[in-house]
């Protein structure tokens, strides 16, 4: 039987510029489209975060930042970062680029749907941005959008901002579903000859499991968004009890705000791992390639990804320990949450053990990977505080939470994304990045983000609450907290400005960079073995590759070179 991967029917190459770069069905072009859009909207979120920090570090320094637009910045920053940047970039960007190349396919199995996925995603971003311009402005309900406040007076954007947000999310989920089905199907159906599941690079495993999780988790957000739209526009009461708001008794009755929280976090917690698992996978490959060493405990790494993916669906209510749900749930969710630390810790150990006895080349992608290990250990461990139900009670809704989730799902995945962009840049563009600029970008980003988030944990333990426009005169908060806040803001601004190095480097190198070797790092996985660099439409020229080994044959004893490409046949052909 002929599988899709071996489909030798002639590819229809696009003839026009528009067919090649706009309405493109090539997974690589779609990946770039996804990535550029995600980074563009991510820059908006970055600017919002600086505005927030200016208000917190130097209160009143920018007179037009008021409580209402401050909360709008908080909400839009959070949602953009989690959904429109990280999810879109890791799955739509890296998933699209890497899956077909790494499993030896010519493209995604549904190229047209794949194209549609991007354009629907772009629409969701446009609707999201439209929220800034509707009457009343964007929603200021926090990225969690909790009702009733999301749709009642007293919250910025309760009129139309919340509508654009919910509609945009619904559109995004449509886009994600088209993309996600593609990623899962391509991994299952379009692997080249010899590419068994257990020979796939961990990047593909991470993205594959994350895509499955997204397909299962996003529907919960989708129904929550539709139900809240009904509550807001059609007078239903899914999440709305009778309330007395702004001097009036509402027309709603019998709804339950906590129901929304369950639906939201049933999506929201898997979402953390939808972002984390692709990052875990990608960083495994960066570490292995640049340490010239096989990934340590490959099978355990695969199973850890699968187990984390499964467990992440039964931990959601650890976001709700003080939500007013039945407090006895705390026992179950604390145990399930801390159990998930075991497979996660195994991944950390195996990254460390991959470096151990390696031959570590400290190139820019590797620097980012090492920094990721550090920040992820930090962010993962503070997660144990918040998962351990009774430790969470004093810490919930404080700056400790802000510090924790920024370390674990802000800084850590972003470091991996930077490392991955530097790592694959030579393949994607055919040019080398500038090493010095890359190193400078690394140091500012790594040290700057740690200086930003470490102190946040401490003022959070003190009790400083999150989502506060101003701390005002609060008896338990000493003046030194303002100093901390000012310092955090300065560090954040340095990180913000330093990102210019990244964009300058990538843009300059695209035109002027040194021509790249097709396989500059000496990597074994298939994406480095394409006949053209950058790979052309169809990826593999005349003949699809055949895989003979796993993706991690680095420094094999007695081998001629310190890596053996996946498509190289065994030398002495022993009957296996």
């Amino acid at each position, binding site marked *: 039987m002929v599988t899709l991967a071996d489909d030798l029917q002639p590819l229809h190459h696009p003839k026009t510029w528009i067919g090649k770069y706009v309405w493109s069905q090539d997974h690589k072009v779609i990946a770039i489209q996804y990535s550029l859009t995600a980074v563009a909207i991510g820059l908006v979120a970055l600017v919002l975060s600086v505005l927030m920090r200016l208000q917190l570090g130097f209160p009143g320094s920018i007179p037009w930042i008021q*409580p*209402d637009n401050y*909360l709008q910045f908080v909400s839009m920053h959070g949602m953009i970062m989690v959904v429109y940047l990280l999810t879109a970039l890791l799955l739509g960007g890296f998933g699209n680029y890497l899956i077909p190349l790494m499993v030896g396919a010519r493209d995604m199995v549904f190229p047209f749907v794949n194209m549609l996925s991007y354009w629907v995603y772009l629409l969701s971003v446009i609707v999201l941005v439209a929220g800034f311009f509707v009457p009343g402005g964007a929603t200021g309900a926090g990225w969690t959008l909790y009702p*009733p*406040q999301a749709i009642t007076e*007293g919250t910025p954007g309760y009129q139309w901002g919340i509508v654009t947000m919910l509609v945009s999310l619904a559109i995004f989920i449509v886009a994600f579903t088209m993309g996600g089905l593609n990623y899962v199907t391509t991994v299952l159906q379009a692997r080249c000859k010899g590419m068994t599941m257990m020979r796939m690079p961990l990047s593909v495993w991470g993205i594959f499991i994350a895509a499955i999780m997204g397909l299962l988790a996003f529907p919960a957000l989708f129904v929550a968004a539709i139900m809240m739209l009904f509550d807001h526009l059609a007078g239903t009461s899914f999440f709305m*009890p*009778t*309330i*007395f708001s*702004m001097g009036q008794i509402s*027309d709603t*009755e019998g709804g*339950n*705000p*906590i129901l929304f929280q369950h639906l939201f976090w049933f999506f929201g917690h898997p979402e953390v791992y939808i972002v984390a698992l692709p990052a875990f996978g990608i960083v495994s490959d960066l570490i292995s390639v640049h*340490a*010239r*060493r*096989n990934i*340590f*405990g490959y099978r*355990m790494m695969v199973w850890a990804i699968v187990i984390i993916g499964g467990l992440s669906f039964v931990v959601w209510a650890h976001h709700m320990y003080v939500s*007013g749900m039945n407090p006895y749930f*705390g026992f179950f969710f*604390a145990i399930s949450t801390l159990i998930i630390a*075991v497979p996660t*810790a*195994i991944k950390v*150990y*195996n990254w*460390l*053990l991959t470096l151990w006895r*390696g031959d*570590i080349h400290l190139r820019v992608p590797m620097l980012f990977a090492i920094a990721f290990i*550090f920040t992820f*250990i930090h962010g993962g461990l503070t997660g*144990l*505080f918040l998962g*351990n139900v*009774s*430790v969470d*009670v*004093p810490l919930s*809704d404080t700056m400790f939470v802000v510090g924790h989730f920024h370390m674990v799902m802000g800084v850590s995945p972003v470091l991996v994304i930077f490392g991955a962009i530097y790592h694959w840049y030579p393949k994607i563009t055919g040019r080398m990045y500038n090493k010095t600029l890359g190193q400078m970008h690394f140091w500012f980003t790594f*040290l700057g983000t740690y200086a930003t988030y470490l102190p946040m944990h*401490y003022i959070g333990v*003190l009790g400083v*609450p999150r*989502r*506060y426009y101003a701390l*005002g005169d*609060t*008896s338990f908060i*000493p003046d*030194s907290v303002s100093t*901390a806040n000012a310092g955090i803001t300065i560090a954040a601004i340095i990180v913000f400005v330093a990102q210019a190095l990244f964009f300058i480097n990538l843009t300059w190198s695209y035109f002027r960079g040194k021509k790249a070797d097709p396989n500059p790092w000496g990597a074994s996985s298939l994406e480095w073995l394409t006949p053209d660099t950058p790979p052309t439409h169809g990826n593999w020229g005349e003949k699809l590759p055949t895989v003979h080994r796993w993706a*991690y044959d680095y*420094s094999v*004893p007695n081998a001629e070179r310190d890596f053996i490409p996946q498509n190289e046949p065994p030398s002495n052909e022993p009957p296996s």
Partner: protein
Amino acid sequence: MPVAIVIAALVVGSVLFHLVSPWWQTPIASNWSSLDVALDVTLWICGLAFIVLNLFLAYVVWRYRHREGHRAHYEPENASLEKTLTFWTAVGIVGMLTPGLAAWAKYVNVPQDAAMVEAVGQQWQWTYRYPGPDGVLGAAGVMHITPDNSLGLDPTDPFGRDDKIIESSEMRLPLDKPVKLLLRSKDVLHDFYVPEFRAKMDLVPGIVTYFWMTPTVAGDFGILCAELCGVGHHEMRGNVVVEPQAAFDEWLSEQITFGEILEQASPASRSEMFATADVCVGTSIWSNP
């Protein structure tokens, strides 16, 4: 090479920061030292893991940095090493969960003798209610709210007549007496948060939530809202004065009861209050088009 030194320096720096930073928990003023113990145990175990793992990272990056002629060691897996590490991780997890769940078991079990006090949140202020001599809070709901009945007590419920209504942002609690705080919101989510008490809980419109604690230190503590509730979220403040039982009793006796409010109200206001009791299902879009 610099990165190995920097990682090691960050570990040392983080520990130093922890030791010299002026920001740590406020002095505890309630019985919830068990929550602090759980936090301390978690901190020690996680702190140890942070130091060991990152110093190992720094060592490995330095020790196995690329040098001419050096080649990596090929070893796909090492089952016994992985099993050992998994085992010790599990031990650490159990070590953290044990004090954590033990404290939680206390948190969810309200003592029989805990006095009831109600805190009511609305955008963006706190009000309170104490039971009268019957020790019971009368029925209440937002459908009963009128200008003179701001907490929405059911005027037909006899248990509510002796309830003390505190329409000020200050509440008081007797020292060393367990109290069950019943939390009710009129409009959106809020969260009753006094850092010194450690305990906190969301207020959810439509239901009554609760937590319990025993204030153990006399003093005046600020109440904050810890759940985003709109543009005035950061200004939703109250305070709680913890004082000996005698002083507390005296203060409480000076507070107005719901029965007194009913008596003092004008006839029009009274009939408005009682009118709310007739609409027993509240106002829905169906009954009030």
